[in-house]
């Protein structure tokens, strides 16, 4: 079992969701974040004072998947999120040692689905 954490452009969320659905991955958790990466932000002035915005608005996805779904998930995210322009984001795959579905008490892989 793995936890995929992906940071994407907010406006790509719908496409990523769509691509995941097509890969039959329905379960995910989404958060607002601000982040910095290769895309270094921008600077503006507010009332004449410098405003360095180096944390840009991004969306963070967490998707717990069983091992056979890791690659499909990665592909789907890539498909939905890639624009080819700076700021497209990254994803990490983390090991999950245990999973539990709270309602049913299911443990392990079945809890993921």
């Amino acid at each position, binding site marked *: 079992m793995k936890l995929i954490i992906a940071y994407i452009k*907010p*406006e790509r*969320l*719908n496409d990523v969701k769509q691509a995941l659905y097509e890969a039959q991955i329905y379960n995910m958790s989404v958060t*607002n974040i601000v982040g910095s990466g290769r895309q270094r932000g*921008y600077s*503006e*002035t*507010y009332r004449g004072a410098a*405003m360095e915005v180096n944390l840009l*608005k991004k*969306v963070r996805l967490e998707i717990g998947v069983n091992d056979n779904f890791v690659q499909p998930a990665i592909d789907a995210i890539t498909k939905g999120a890639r624009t080819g322009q700076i700021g497209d984001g990254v994803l990490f795959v983390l090991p999950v040692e245990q999973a539990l579905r709270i309602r049913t008490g299911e443990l392990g892989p079945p809890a993921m689905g």
Partner: protein
Amino acid sequence: MSKRLTAWGATLVGLLLMLATNALADDAKPAPTVTDVATAIDTVWVLVTAFLVFFMQAGFACVEAGFTRAKNVCNILAKNFIDFCVSSLMFFLIGYAIMFGDGNDYLGWTGFGLSEAKNPSGVPLYAYWLFQAVFAGTAATIVSGAMAERTRFIAYLLYTFVISAIIYPVIGHWTWGGGWLSTMGFADFAGSTVVHATGGWIALVGALMLGPRIGKYGPDGKPKAITGHNIPLASVGVMILWFGWFGFNPGSTLGAVGSNTEAIGLIAINTNLAAAAGGLFATIAVWMIYGKPDVSMLFNGVLAGLVAITAPCAYVSPSAAIVIGAIGGVLVVLGVMLLDKLHIDDPVGAVPVHCLNGIWGTLAVGIWGQKALGLANDGLLHGGGLGQLGVQALGVIACGAYAVISMAIIFSIIKAIVGLRVTPEEELRGLDIDEHGMEGYADFQIFTTR
């Protein structure tokens, strides 16, 4: 002897009367006459109602901001402010002269910068100007809502100069400035057509020329909800508009003395009942059609009732006002549906509210209007036949055609020079950052996923 006495008596009466009126004016100031006082009260009325109409700018700003997305909120507010600034200045320099100046049936041409300007009212010129200027500002600001979330700031700024200097004043001249429509007996008491339908038609042209926001219509053509981001803000806006409308309609008597005393009461009650009926019936309509009472439609319904009663407010009875408002409320719900069918993306419902109901209200004059209340002819339901209704329809069509054609040209020119629409990247990221370099809600965690 009695002759003499009587003569002295008469003198005394006269003098006493004069003294009485002098009582407080111990410092040389001449005592006010009844006419002075009457003019004073008329002027106070016109100014106070003008202030209320001014405040509607806040209402429009709140409604439009609340019904759109957080990422564009600075932009829509900036547009609402700047359009009033510009239209105040332009209506002073140019607009008033075109609207009320001497000229022909189609256009006035004297009194630029208010110098030696004509004053058709019984109140001082400057007071009258203010009242007219806030109306011009209203017509201008209606448009921003329909063009929200995708129009370039500079394009909007340019448009604003034109509408307040020329487009609106011309229609105003036709109807209120002694032009051809007024000669024909066309009646639009407080501006269902002159202000609202004009603004609404231009909103329609603008929305059409811009095209829908990214994501508004799915690949399958189905409309998708792009919900407003701050319903409380929108609700405050609607309340402010309703409040301001008590200036808009009753103030249009331009006075409170004499027959106007009755009239302002009638107009006020009609305004209130039409708004109430509009709100209630829009709620019922949306509840019946979609299963839940959508609050945004309740708000639009109130505004629809207000727009609809604007033309007939002085000419109809309170019961008629209820019917007019109720129909307006239903119309706005159907209008929103229709626009979505036609893939015209109007984020705040400016077209159904101002254009559709502006037309409806103007026609309603020809249906429920009463000669006894100052209309040229009785309306259809008061036995006057189709005469007035015909004139009303003519006015609707003429003003609509003029507004649509002239603004289609203007928008095309603006498009050619600076471009109407922001880039897709700017639209996705939000206009606030790209056009103004700031955010509306810096401390809040905002979703920009939509």
